[in-house]
């Protein structure tokens, strides 16, 4: 299913913050997790993840440092900050309101949070 661009952009920040809340990570691993969590239904342009990560850094939601893992290439890691966790909680509340409202406004779809593809 194709997810609308605006919706994708709006959900990208909480999604990335939620993944980083589980532990520090780097670009490619984050993107793989997004693919896995959405079962391939959220397809980002990979390159777009990086400006987003840099924005989260500027906002103070993540910190970043370059490290070289044993036997690997130099890589940039991202870790969530307290401000990032606060922002994530705020996003979570906002999305809860939106999904709750949509679920009651669209009764014919039932609980749309569990609806898949066909709708």
């Amino acid at each position, binding site marked *: 299913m194709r997810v609308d661009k605006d919706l994708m952009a709006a959900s990208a920040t909480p999604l990335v913050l939620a993944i980083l809340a589980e532990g520090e990570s780097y670009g*490619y691993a984050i993107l793989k997790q997004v693919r896995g969590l959405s079962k391939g239904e959220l397809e980002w*342009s*990979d*390159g777009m993840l990086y*400006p*987003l990560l840099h*924005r989260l850094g500027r906002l103070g939601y993540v910190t970043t440092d*370059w490290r070289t893992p044993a036997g690997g*290439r130099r890589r*940039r890691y991202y870790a969530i900050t307290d401000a990032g966790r606060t922002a994530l909680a705020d996003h979570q509340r906002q999305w809860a309101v939106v999904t709750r409202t949509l679920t009651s406004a669209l009764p014919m779809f039932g609980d749309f949070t569990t609806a898949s593809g066909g709708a």
Partner: protein
Amino acid sequence: MSLESQVSEWRRFVISAPALNGHDVDELEDHLRHQIADLNAAGLSDDEAFMVAVKRMGDLDAVSREFAREHSDRLWKQLLGPGDKASAAPSGWVEALVVACVAAVAMELARIVADFPDKSPPWFTRNASLFVLPLLAGYFAGYFARRRRLWN
């Protein structure tokens, strides 16, 4: 072409994008190599894996614009555009020179036509501006269109 040379060619292309610095390109390259390795592991050849990985990276212009939006301190690079900045000035001069020559010829023509046949009403002389102004207007229209493009 080997995978290594494909990746370094890709890198040369990406680093030419405005608003991306060396660190950004390092990060994107690390991503590309990861993606290629995973696709290799899934059974794709080097060539196929490279093509798919580059495609998944997305449109470079769009990515570069996002970087520029985020790093507004690098925005000035956008003004130069993706092309070679050195070529901008000479082409502008050449264009101005061509317009000047065409305008000179047009004025000369108007004078000749006005003098011949003898005693004909100097319609062309009186209306010389009619021949020259469109050329100037065309030149400035082009000039401002280019400027606008640079700022967007």
